[in-house]
């Protein structure tokens, strides 16, 4: 099951690091704790609580996946009322849910951010909103066209259909999210997808638009996560866990060392801040395979922020948080307490900048951190020591220290929180 390499060949030079290597048991024993976690995950009843069940006041309805005909009819309804309003001489406008941070709410029962019910009327006859209203109208028409033809385009494509009006992609992207909110459907229902960003590799087989994809045979680069997730079906896997990696570099190392063959797992990364497709994919994979997700991120506030986006969603996309979030992610590493435990040398630790400190202190107050005292303690330690470290800091003991010592050690001890 594993292509075992001769231990000690990785050129570890530190007494402490070597000591850890000696503590490693056989691979089966290492896997024991993960396997147990995996079993428990499989037995867990499917999460049944939804936003509707909670019946919270002042919360907006969550968006749902809509088929093309429904989207078309929603747009037509809107456009007909716009036309009628223009013909009556009243100009026109759209009522759009506000997506600012003041209109966000963290719901502990669901463990994610949802949108409150505040909305604003965006009208044409106003200097400050005329531009946005014009762009909204144009986007509605473009989506109407897309849904009628049944094709998908990327956000970039959408932007290029009317560069003169949109001016920059940020503007059309923002309005696109507004339109999703307004129509009450997910962004993928609008037939607009982001460009490919995330990659996946490991013990996973799925079907994409009829083609069977075997992620063990994807080389070291991995399989790009398809932007339109509705075409992905039939997940199969013998993996014990999903390893969520923050960065491309660590992903490369894991893929090249065929980590997933030694310890059966699926490795996934979004190369930094996760895009919608990667989050959708992770959510779908987790709920179908029912295996735990272990997170491997940098030991800095930014790494935690990325975990938080996977777990409780981003503020920008909170209207669709139910489809995008994977609440139960275990924080495997690199945790602030690991720095001393694994004796990471001083020169690999970086002092936190003022901005880091500010983010760190702010996060200490966030519900997402506060709900788990162990997470809170780790972040407090980071802020107290004012030190951060990247996953790559582990390379100071040799390039393969991550795959051959650090991760096996963590798994063996069941050291996740």
């Amino acid at each position, binding site marked *: 099951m594993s292509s075992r390499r001769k231990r000690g060949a990785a050129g570890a030079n530190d007494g402490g690091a070597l000591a850890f290597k000696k503590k490693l048991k056989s691979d089966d024993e290492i896997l024991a704790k993960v396997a147990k976690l995996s079993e428990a995950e499989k037995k867990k009843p499917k999460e049944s609580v939804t936003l509707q069940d909670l019946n919270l006041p002042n919360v907006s309805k969550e968006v749902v996946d809509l088929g093309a005909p429904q989207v078309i009819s929603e747009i037509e309804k809107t456009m007909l009322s716009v*036309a009628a309003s223009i*013909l009556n001489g009243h100009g026109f406008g759209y009522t759009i849910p506000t997506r600012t941070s003041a209109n966000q709410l963290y719901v502990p029962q669901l463990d994610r951010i949802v949108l409150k019910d505040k909305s604003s009327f965006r009208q044409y006859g106003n*200097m400050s909103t*005329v531009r946005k209203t*014009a762009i909204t109208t144009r986007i*509605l028409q473009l989506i109407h066209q897309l849904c009628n033809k049944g094709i998908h385009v990327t956000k970039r494509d959408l932007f290029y259909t009317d560069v003169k009006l949109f001016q920059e992609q940020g503007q059309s992207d923002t309005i696109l999210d507004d339109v999703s909110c307004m129509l009450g459907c997910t962004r993928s229902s609008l037939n607009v997808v982001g460009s490919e960003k995330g990659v996946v590799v490991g013990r996973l087989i799925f079907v994409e638009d009829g083609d069977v994809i075997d992620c063990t045979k994807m080389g070291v680069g991995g399989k790009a996560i398809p932007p339109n997730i509705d075409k992905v079906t039939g997940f199969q896997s013998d993996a014990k866990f999903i390893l969520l990696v923050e960065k491309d570099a660590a992903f490369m190392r894991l893929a090249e060392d065929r980590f997933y063959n030694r310890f059966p797992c699926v490795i996934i990364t979004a190369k930094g801040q996760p895009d919608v497709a990667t989050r959708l994919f992770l959510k779908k994979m987790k709920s179908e395979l029912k295996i735990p997700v272990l997170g491997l991120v940098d030991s800095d506030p930014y790494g935690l922020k990325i975990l938080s986006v996977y777990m409780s969603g981003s503020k920008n996309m909170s209207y669709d948080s139910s489809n995008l979030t994977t609440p139960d992610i275990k924080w495997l590493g690199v945790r602030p307490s690991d720095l001393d435990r694994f004796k990471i040398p001083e020169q690999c630790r970086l002092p936190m900048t003022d901005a880091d400190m500010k983010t760190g202190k702010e996060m200490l107050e966030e519900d997402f951190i506060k709900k788990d005292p162990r997470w809170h303690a780790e972040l407090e330690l980071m802020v107290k020591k004012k030190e951060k470290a990247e996953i790559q800091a582990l390379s100071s003991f040799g390039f393969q220290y991550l795959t051959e010592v650090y991760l096996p050690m963590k798994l063996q001890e069941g050291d996740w929180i």
Partner: protein
Amino acid sequence: MPMAGGKENGGAASKAGKVARPVGKKHPVLKQKSPAEFFSENKNIAGFDNPGKSLYTTVRELVENALDSAESIAELPEIEVTIEEIEKSRFHALIGLVDQDRVDEELYGDFETDKLKEKRLAREAKEQERLAKAGKKAKEGQRAGGKGKGDASFYRVTVKDNGKGMPHDDIPNMLGRVLSGTKYGLRQTRGKFGLGAKMALIWSKMSTGLPIDIRSAMKGHPFCTFCRLDIDIHKNLPNIHKHEKEPNPQRWRGAELQVVIEGNWTTYKSKIVNYMRQMAVITPYAEFVFRFISTTPDKNISIHFARRTDVMPAAPQEAKYHPSAVDLLLIKRLIAETSKQTLSQFLVAEFDTVKKPLAERLIGEMGPDFASKMAVRSLTDQQVARIHQLFRQAKFADPSGDCLSPAGEYNMRLGIMKDLHPDMVATYQGSTQVFEGHPFIVEAGLSLGGKDVKPGINVFRFANRIPLLFEAGGDVITRTASKRINWASYKINQTTDKIGVFVSIVSTKIPFKGTGKEYIGDDIPEIAAAVKQALQQCCLQLKSKIVRQQQARERQQRKRNLARYIPDVTRAVFEVLDTIADSKRRRTELPPGDAALLEKVVSEEVTEETLRQKLTQHVEQVDNEMALEYAAQTGKVETAPETIFLRALDSKRAFLPDLHSPVCVFRLLAGC
């Protein structure tokens, strides 16, 4: 500065036979340095660091002297400054050298061997090529090799004023002796050291060896004095070449000084022109004519700064020392010089804010050794020290600042408008403030836009009504303007707007920093706070104007902006309508209102054009409503501004009787 607390070395004082030191007991080895020697060796202190700076400082010292002279007799200053470049051969003729051809070329520093010459030619050719490529004329390239290193440039600087002139007999002493000035009291003065023209004289002596020419006439005198002298640096005495009276048929009054010095026009041209320009800003009641005469006529410059007002600030008054601003040495000096006999009289006469009752209380506080009737000259050193100590601890009223002469908001505004032609200007004069017993007043002006103004913050600094041009970085004004003013909150963009910041500080003591006294330190909280407050006041004045201007601009753009997106929007809406209309299946599922609308689309009763017209109408309606709202808010109706012209006055015109009001007088033209 060694001279700051120096003895009154003035001619009158030394003639009175007061011997300050036992000069007779001089040790034979000890060499005494005359003040002139000290300055010639430390000329950087007075702003004579290099030839370029020396030219600049010479001009400024002469100009400031001229201004002082005219202002001292309340005459509106008219000042002519001429800098004349002197050719090498002419200069040699002046100093009596014959132009000699070089025989032994290799002897000279700028000799180039054939190899070097080849290199230079190659480099120049390359440079020319580059310039030609860039489409520029290769003007500079030709000149590069022209001037050798050893060639100094010489200039004749002439400054002529309409001031009070100098008494015939005093001229040699007034100019030929360092530290023999009139500027040694406590008073707001332009000069930094009170050296004025004398440093220029020393510099001319050092660089060219040529004497200076002075022409001067006083009011009512039938003659004009011509004097040619230089300075004996070791003896600190004037060395008179010529001192004679010439006829003055036009009854001209004023002074003209002419020096020939080494300088560098190329590098200091902008500084000198800038200085003149800023001087014109802060002194709009003066008329300046500035000329530069080059050896090549196309480089000649002639600038005329016209007078814009005849309101002149009152001359600064001599002030008494404030008790909290004196040191031990100064008290002793005042005791030595006072005409008063008793201690009480002395305190009242020599110190600011000390009245008789306060003097008695102070004397009572000094201790049993003191009495108000005791002779002031009988005080022992310990007693003087006690007075000093008490002055430090006691509380005194702040100096009134009446002795100061700020430029005035009116003059400052005119000066700024005259030379910058800004779009907007605001001025503010702060109240008198005090630091360490010295009164000071901060005046500020703020301009937006204008010609020859760079985008960003342009700081114009003035201390005692002279411009400060060097070492702006550490200056309290520069730092306040760039760091402590939140420009954005006044709707001013710090990087793109053309901001002119003018701050003038007047005081009996300007706390200069740096060797050349080129800037005012940022370490006096009173001054920093006053500068900030003055600038903020100006910003506030401008803010309302800017907001009004922005609203007006917005109003103009509103309609255009609202109309801009009409085609985009109507096309999009209509395209969707058209698509729905085409698919018959869906039309039946719609509510009746929408179905009727679609019917109209099919029958082409409603087209894209219909939508466009309706939306355009709506936009016009919105625009009118907003214009009404604006008019209701501001009480103004939008009408196009009309240009009106004021007729120039001339002597032939008759006036109606004056109409008097408390603030002004109207004088209407008759027959209009």
